[in-house]
């Protein structure tokens, strides 16, 4: 085989080590590359097929059957489960709860993160402590967070009522349950968005502030005319990640309120879990899971559209 070693700087594409002088790849090299490529990707691809692709297909098949834990009614019933889901008040209610939670949590999770990052970025003493305080909760498991806050919200013995007075049953009153869960969620996960903002803030070119100072712009003016606009791409990333994360909420609601009182906080993921694992209606649970998936896909597409229209990088 007569081949000439030649540097190929096109990264990510093209054969890189051995290319013929005319730029074409010999067939044997191509076959070898294909073998190597699939060889390297094989472990991931196998896991991917077994634990992601197959359950997606199997779940869709289940959603077309009346399958339950007993194995009865396993025949294909077409889209009857989907029809039932669209007529099921509990599906709509848990979807409503999920969207309400997403709205209530995303706004403070972005705004509070921004405020905390702006304050910490002033460079005041105590950087290590501020980062610890605001980011450490993010490292806790949902269960730990829930146990902490169940205790904070305890009507008789909790810190919150002992400071505020009164005996509000935060987690079992339908007026306060959702907002209580939202407060816990903000405390728990705002640190991640805070971190992303902090990283972005450090990246704003110094010269912009110097130029603005020379033009006589005060600190507040600089905040609104330089900092906030410069953070726009980061804000878009954060909002996208946050909406998708909030739509998938389950853990803290399930542990803190059990979805109650009377289903007032139950999110859609909990409804899938309960239908599949306590009512044992596999087929129906799978159909609701696909409805949930459709909402995630729609939310993602809306965000892609909004992002590309704004021309953000």
């Amino acid at each position: 085989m007569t081949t000439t070693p030649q540097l190929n700087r096109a990264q990510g594409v093209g054969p890189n080590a051995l290319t013929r002088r005319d730029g074409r790849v010999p067939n044997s090299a191509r076959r070898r590359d294909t073998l190597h490529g699939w060889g390297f990707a094989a472990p991931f691809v196998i896991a991917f097929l077994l634990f992601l692709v197959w359950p997606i297909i199997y779940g869709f098949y289940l959603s077309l059957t009346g399958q339950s834990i007993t194995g009865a009614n396993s025949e294909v019933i077409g889209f009857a489960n989907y029809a039932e889901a669209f007529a099921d008040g509990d599906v709509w209610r848990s979807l409503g709860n999920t969207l309400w939670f997403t709205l209530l949590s995303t706004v403070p999770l972005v705004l509070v993160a921004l405020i905390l990052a702006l304050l910490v970025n002033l460079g005041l003493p105590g950087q290590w402590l501020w980062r610890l305080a605001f980011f450490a909760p993010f490292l806790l498991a949902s269960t730990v967070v829930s146990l902490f806050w169940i205790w904070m919200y305890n009507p008789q013995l909790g810190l919150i009522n002992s400071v505020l007075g009164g005996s509000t049953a935060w987690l079992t009153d339908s007026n306060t349950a959702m907002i209580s869960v939202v407060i816990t969620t903000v405390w728990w996960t705002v640190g991640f968005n805070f971190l992303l903002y902090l990283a972005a803030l450090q990246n704003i070119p110094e010269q912009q502030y110097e130029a603005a100072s020379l033009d006589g712009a005060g600190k507040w003016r600089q905040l609104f005319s330089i900092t906030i606009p410069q953070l726009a791409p980061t804000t878009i990333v954060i909002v996208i990640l946050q909406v998708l994360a909030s739509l998938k909420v389950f853990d803290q609601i399930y542990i803190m309120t059990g979805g109650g009182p009377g289903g007032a906080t139950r999110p859609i993921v909990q409804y899938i879990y309960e239908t599949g694992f306590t009512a044992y209606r596999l087929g129906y649970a799978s159909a609701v899971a696909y409805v949930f998936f459709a909402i995630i896909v729609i939310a993602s597409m809306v965000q892609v559209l909004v992002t590309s229209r704004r021309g953000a990088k």
Partner: protein
Amino acid sequence: MTATEVLDRTEASTDRRVPSARQGRDRRKPLRPSSIIALVILAVLAALWLMPFAWAIVTSLKSEADAGATPVTWIPAGGFTLDAYTSVLSEGNIPQWAFNSVFTSAVITAIAVAISALAAYAFSRIDFAGKRVLFYVTIASIIVPPQMLIVPLFYQMLAFDMVDTYAGIILPQLIHPAIVFILKQFFDQVPIELEEAARVDGASRMRVFLQIVLPLSRPILAAVSIFIFVGAWNNFLWPFIVTNDASLMTLPVGLQTVQSAFGVQYAQDMASAVLAALPLIIVFLFFQRQIIKGFATTGFGGQ
């Protein structure tokens, strides 16, 4: 935005020896009044954020009688005690759960990073038939929420006889398409000349990958490892579904059963929660910079 760019950016932001070049303020100079106001606001917010920790720790150091006493006080009438910790550690399953969490999270991290890096390297460097399709399918799968797969996955695990096994906990947590993407982005930016020189000298692809590419990728590998480890350590839904046997539960799943088991034993509940919180918080205290960098990198990378 690429992973390496973020890495460089967060390098500056997380280095506390360089507080903020923009302010250009010498630390020895007295603070301006506006800075003092900002400092007070920050201190109040930080105190608020640390309050649930403090309250949990104080409660865990009370006797059950004091923890359940009204009016609520920070200093217990009967003095502080470690009783809650000793009974939780001697009677409960916490040491076993902690082991399960460390073991499953470590195995998940090791395997997930290895298979993701191998696949990312193939996507970045090898021109193989079917690569485009495979890559687009991998990227598209980022959108799939793991929560939607719990029912089919559970019955798959039943069929594999893997319910209530470590394998059942670990296997479905190995796929991280977003991490494959982040690593591919990184590999794309590693200069290719070194690899080519080695290839010309007759080194196999695997040797090039192991001896040249991986050592160059240490920062990004550390970043994604931290991300995957914390995710696995804190994962609740899947281990909760696939384990019924208390001796196989991970910490988050086991803790959820503690509440009902200990009933109204508030000090013990809080001692359990504090014990479960401790490992990652301690690690964070020592490796704050690396952990923050790891999260910022993977966060911007698309996950």
